[in-house]
């Protein structure tokens, strides 16, 4: 569509209504045949035998599970990037009528009959194919010759790493497509700028730049690099406009606002909308629920929502609650106690209080229930009307099953000797008094009289005697503690950390004063009736934050590589191996292309430096317009390569060869640029001289 050359209709004649009666309707179309041919070849190379192999190839095993979850509308969190790319892949599944029933567990597993392999791989392949005409157009818009543009497109067409990456259900080809589209639209827009500002096509290309940028960012965060490059370019171009005295201040302001709208506001809005659709599609609870806060979980259908539905909102004296640690690392867990005591002596010889263990337990259990008690009263039931607990109130926490009080004292914790041990108090009559008063501090309160709310309030428990704060240390206790997580009283609490925050997850108003009855009550499921809904922005903020901060363990993959390996192509990735025939698919660059791209980049750098230094001494080797051309092409192609490549040296995550593909695409575009420059200027001089 976009790349179909310029189609010009005889529509100019249609200004008169009945014109067709006087003159024949003539439609003339100018079609760039080479461009069409390139597109067709691109499609052929990417789509040919798309279904082969009919087995899970490399990262399809990773993205596939998300496609399945989309089909089943089950919520998930993927820390590898924003959801737009996943959604596009899922769109492929949707078009093919995929029901999501496939177990994505192993590379090389045969697809079952219900998996629409062709449609799943179609979108990435199309995106990869369209990169070929895009490359042609970009060079043409940079004012390079048809020949150079043709060369660029051919190089992209024949780059086997790009072909490999496009033919499977992977995101890189989609990313590269949007990146190139953004660059092309910006160039089109910029070239229209001189003659027809604010015309329809000017607006079209400007808006398309913004849209393509946000799509690129939405597919993978790597898209940010190109977005930044284009923003910088637009900023530079606008800076030149500021210096243009012919433009009035008002029109300058209009230009600025148009750019801000198209390049900043619209991309942000689109980015938000990706999340909106993502959250709208995925409304069922699923395997990743536990990463999210209780409030978020409660907004999903099934899972926690089923349990918490209809709980009383305000925690009152006598409430029976479970307390979940807000941090959720190393795993989500609830404050827990059981009848076992701390060993009198630890392995390293230190002593303990020998009181009842308090831990954080990663599974739902009846021992996770605690009762909020007013220190001044004996009763463990909610009075009528309930007396809500507010910020700053002092409470005691009674363990539901054992009826012991949560306690901490100046005894070193089992694994974190700098912190205090937390226990459920047992009176051994050894002049170690109970210290079981805790002050409730609601951290996310709006006022100092806020009521402690189920799920919503994040609470710190500050020990009244020692000012220690109840904290999850993250360490896992040895055998005597059943490998549950250690809970300590942090004396020197350095600011706020989520490991010190707790929120009420399950909650009901206790009714039974008798211990036996209460046990029955604790074992029974909660049931009541209020529902809470988070606003979209709250959900978005939380999900975005989790995506950015969730870290998978830093493990080295068999085929991971370092950024330096990529230029020299010292690495490859085996994507697939046929179990019997030994047929294989590897991701590997085209050696000739990569080597010449490296040479082109090096040559470009040296030549630019040479010109630059000489120009500084007022020696002009090439005409001014050729210089402008050279700099613009370098800024886009060389700059694109640099911004998509160099940041990887600073990253600590596991890297693969495919991370280099966007960069190498730009680097390949540099080859015809340098070649044409050489032939136009240097070689001509040589021949002439």
């Amino acid at each position, binding site marked *: 569509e976009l790349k179909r050359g310029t189609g010009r209709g005889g529509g100019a004649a249609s200004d008169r209504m009945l014109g067709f009666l006087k003159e024949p309707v003539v439609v003339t179309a100018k079609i760039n045949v080479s461009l069409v041919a390139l597109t067709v070849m691109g499609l052929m190379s990417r789509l040919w035998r798309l279904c082969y192999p009919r087995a899970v190839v490399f990262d399809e095993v990773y993205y596939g599970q998300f496609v399945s979850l989309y089909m089943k509308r089950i919520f998930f969190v993927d820390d590898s990037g924003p959801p737009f790319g996943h959604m596009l892949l899922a769109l492929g599944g949707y078009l093919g009528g995929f029901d999501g029933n496939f177990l994505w567990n192993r590379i090389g597993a045969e697809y079952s009959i219900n998996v629409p392999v062709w449609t799943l791989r179609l979108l990435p392949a199309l995106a990869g194919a369209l990169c070929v005409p895009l490359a042609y157009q970009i060079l043409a818009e940079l004012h390079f010759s048809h020949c150079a543009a043709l060369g660029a497109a051919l190089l992209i067409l024949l780059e086997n790493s790009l072909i490999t990456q496009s033919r499977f259900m992977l995101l890189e080809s989609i990313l590269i497509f949007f990146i190139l589209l953004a660059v092309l639209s910006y160039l089109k827009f910029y070239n229209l700028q001189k003659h027809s500002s604010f015309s329809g096509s000017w607006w079209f290309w400007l808006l398309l730049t913004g849209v393509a940028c946000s799509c690129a960012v939405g597919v993978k965060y790597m898209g940010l690099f190109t977005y930044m490059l284009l923003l910088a370019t637009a900023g530079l171009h606008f800076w030149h406009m500021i210096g243009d005295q012919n433009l009035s201040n008002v029109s300058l302001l209009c230009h600025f606002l148009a750019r801000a709208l198209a390049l900043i506001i619209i991309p942000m809005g689109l980015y938000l909308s990706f999340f909106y659709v993502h959250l709208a599609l995925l409304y069922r609870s699923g395997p990743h629920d536990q990463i999210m806060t209780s409030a978020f979980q409660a907004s999903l259908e099934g899972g926690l929502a089923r349990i918490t539905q209809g709980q009383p909102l305000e925690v009152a004296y006598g409430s029976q609650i479970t307390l979940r640690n807000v941090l959720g690392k190393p795993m989500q867990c609830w404050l827990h106690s059981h009848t076992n005591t701390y060993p009198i002596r630890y392995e390293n010889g230190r002593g303990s209080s020998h009181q009842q263990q308090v831990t954080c337990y990663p599974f739902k259990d009846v021992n996770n229930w605690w009762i909020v008690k007013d220190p001044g009263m004996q009763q463990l039931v909610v009075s009528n009307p309930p007396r809500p607990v507010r910020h700053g109130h002092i409470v005691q926490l009674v363990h539901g099953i054992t009826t012991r009080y949560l306690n901490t004292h100046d005894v070193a914790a089992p694994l974190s000797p700098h912190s205090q041990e937390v226990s459920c108090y047992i009176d051994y009559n050894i002049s170690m008094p109970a210290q079981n008063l805790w002050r409730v501090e609601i951290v996310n309160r709006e006022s100092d009289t806020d009521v402690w709310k189920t799920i919503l309030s994040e609470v710190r428990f500050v020990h009244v005697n020692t000012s220690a704060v109840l904290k999850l240390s993250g360490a896992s206790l040895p055998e005597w503690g059943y490998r549950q997580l250690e809970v300590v009283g942090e004396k020197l609490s350095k600011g706020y950390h989520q*490991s010190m925050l707790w929120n009420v997850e399950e909650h009901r108003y206790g009714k039974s004063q008798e211990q036996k009855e209460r046990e029955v009550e604790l074992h029974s499921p909660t049931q009541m009736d209020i529902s809470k809904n988070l606003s979209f922005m709250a959900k978005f903020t939380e999900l975005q934050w989790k995506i950015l901060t969730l870290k998978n363990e830093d493990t080295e993959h068999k085929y991971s590589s370092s950024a330096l390996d990529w230029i020299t192509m010292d690495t490859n990735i085996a994507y697939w191996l046929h179990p019997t025939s030994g047929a294989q698919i590897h991701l590997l660059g085209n050696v000739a292309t990569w080597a010449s791209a490296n040479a082109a980049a090096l040559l470009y750098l040296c030549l630019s430096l040479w010109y630059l230094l000489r120009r500084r001494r007022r020696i002009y080797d090439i005409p001014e317009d050729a210089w402008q051309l050279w700099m613009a092409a370098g800024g886009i192609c060389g700059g694109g390569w640099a911004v998509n490549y160099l940041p990887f040296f600073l990253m600590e995550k596991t890297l693969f060869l495919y991370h280099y593909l966007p960069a190498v695409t730009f680097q390949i575009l540099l080859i015809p640029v340098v070649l044409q420059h050489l032939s136009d200027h240097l070689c001509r001089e040589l021949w002439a001289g």
Partner: protein
Amino acid sequence: MAPPSPPAPLPPAGRARSQRRVPWRRRRSSPSRPALRARRLRAPHGRDCIPRRAPRPAALRPSMRRARRGAARGGCPRMPPRQREPRRGPGAPPRPAPPAATRPAALALVTLLSFASRFHRLREPPHVCWDETHFGKMGSYYINRTFFFDVHPPLGKMLIGLAGYLSGYDGTFPFQKPGDRYEQHNYVGMRGFCAFLGSCLVPFAYLTVLELSKSLPAALLTAFILIFDTGCITLSQYILLDPILMFFLMGAVLSMVKCNSCADRPFSASWWFWLSLTGVSLAGAMGVKFVGLFVVLLVGLNTIYDLWDLLGNLSLSLVMFGKHLLARVLCLIFLPLALYTAMFAVHFAVLNRSGPGDGFFSSAFQSQLIGNNLHNVSVPEHLAYGSVVTMKNLRMAGGYLHSHWHLYPEGVGARQQQVTAYLHKDLNNLWIIKKHDSDTDLSDPSSPVEFVRHGDIIRLEHKETSRNLHSHQHEAPLTRKHFQVTGYGINGTGDSNDFWRIEVVGRRTGQLIKVLRSQVRLTHVATGCVLGSSGKTLPKWGWEQVEVTCTPYLKETPNSLWNFEDHINPKLPNISLDVLKPSFAEILLESHMVMIRGNSGLKPKDNEVTSKPWHWPINYQGLRFSGVNETDYRVYLLGNPVIWWLNLVTIGLYLLITVATAVALKRGVQLTSELKELSRVVLHAGGQITLGWLLHYLPFFMMGRVLYFHHYFPAMLFSSMLTGITWDALLKFCAGFLSPSTTARKVYGGGFLALVLLILYSFYLFHPLSYGMIGPMASHPSSPMAGLRWMDSWEF
């Protein structure tokens, strides 16, 4: 590494005394000066001062005439009349240079105040505060000449040691933990030295701003901000690296700025002086902490800009340009490098006794240290069966082959005993060499000695746990491409996966293996992989020791080579060995590798509250230097919040002003000469300082290591200078709108005075943070800090 050690980046300033007076005096008398000032002074309103040499304008406006009278009264066009007490309020917006006596007086005043504020209550508290436990200890190591290892380069600690030595501290205090009382030990010398350097920051910043903005009020404002910032005071009062670093850093900045001002007289004596002083300060900054790199970057960018400018100057021949280039290469690259190397030479020359840092270094290096078990070592020369040995990895900062009773956790390869590389000397590093096919007790004195030969197949038994070194085709814990190495078997009985072929690099079959000298490779017989250390730190379950793997890739790297270090075999005679003496270059390289590895090893632990870079400019949270409870003497490192928030606001303000100015200039708005001068200061001087701030702040966002609040202080210096420059320019600009010069002066003076009073009052409020608090916490109404805990995150 001791966990509480905070790494710190900091910048300090350069050579103090000599430059304090010379520079501007000379400048004023330089020939180019009057012309420049003339341009600056010719203003449409306010007092104008028209130098005699400048061409007289055709018609003078009334205001100018008034100004001229003023000038006449002042007696000299270069030194216009004195309008008011110079220290307090500067005069009218187009304020010319103050009278000759003002500047030295102002400098003397700020220097005095600075020293007074830093040396006040220097002895308090008389116990070890915060990181004094590290740096004081390291100073003692220098005095005792004991070798140690630290992640920072040696200069700062050497200077601390020197200061202690000169002030009569004998190096006997153990500096065990914060809170230990010094008792009779003389610690004031070391603290005084740091306080002295910390005090120099103020005059340095003052001179830098004066040089950049040519405005006394701007310089004074900067100086007041730094003098009365509680954070800067606290950080200067203890035995820490930060004041030293900041001293060199500010020194480099000042010399750079001075040198730029000398650009009109290249190759003059003062030009050379400032240029080489820049180089010296750079070496100093780098030599204290690696964050000194940021100031090197700043100076580097400035130099490139400078050279670019010179290159564009066509009146300068290429030969001259070459001279400029060479001079800079000499002073800013070779000189600092030479000094930097020299300080390492001194470091290694001073520390010649074995100490706690030995294990981090190679066997060859250790043999240089008096008291090390490898110094003048005498061990059995050739390896024999039954010998007890330690094996050290040959990579830079490689560890000893180590094992302990703990198993690999669930899900990490096979659940067998861990084998790691460990940097410290430890009993668990001992292994026994056994034959692969017989388990005869070789320690039996009657059995004959049998030497191990190149190509033999052996079994290595861990002495403490009696398990064999074992490998199999499970993924290694971190390097997934390699195989896992474990300890396997009971009491030495294992399986065929315990067999290793021992090979010496560059030898043939049958030759004997020499302790220390032979570089050995252990090949796993069953899988063909080679024992190596990947250099990656294992997570908590592996006690943060280094991963050991068996690599199937047979690339010859030091990672997969080992040497035998200790060798115990009672049946063999001990022979004295001269281990190959490493060259200085090797030692230098090795120590840097060790430092870099140490630095990257300082990772934050899970669930530990760490300081984030975005906390810093907003003064979100400080550091406890001393004391926790009500009865303790408490010192809390926290910036004066009023000053810090002023700095923060100013950065935003500066950005706005810069954008507005740049756009106005680009749009070709006609500015008065006065505004032109103002815009030059804002864009050029302010830009340089902002660049410094960015360079000292942004990189922290990308650092993976543990960060602390005090890392921000170098950036804070730049931020304070920016505040001085920006507010001065802003007040001048506002005053410029008010035509009667008296009103303008009032606005300008009033604004300036208000800022200074604000700073003074906030210092009065917050000074107990630096000078110590005893008594109830801030939450209690009777505390001196009552009501001042403006943010919940502050802990006082």
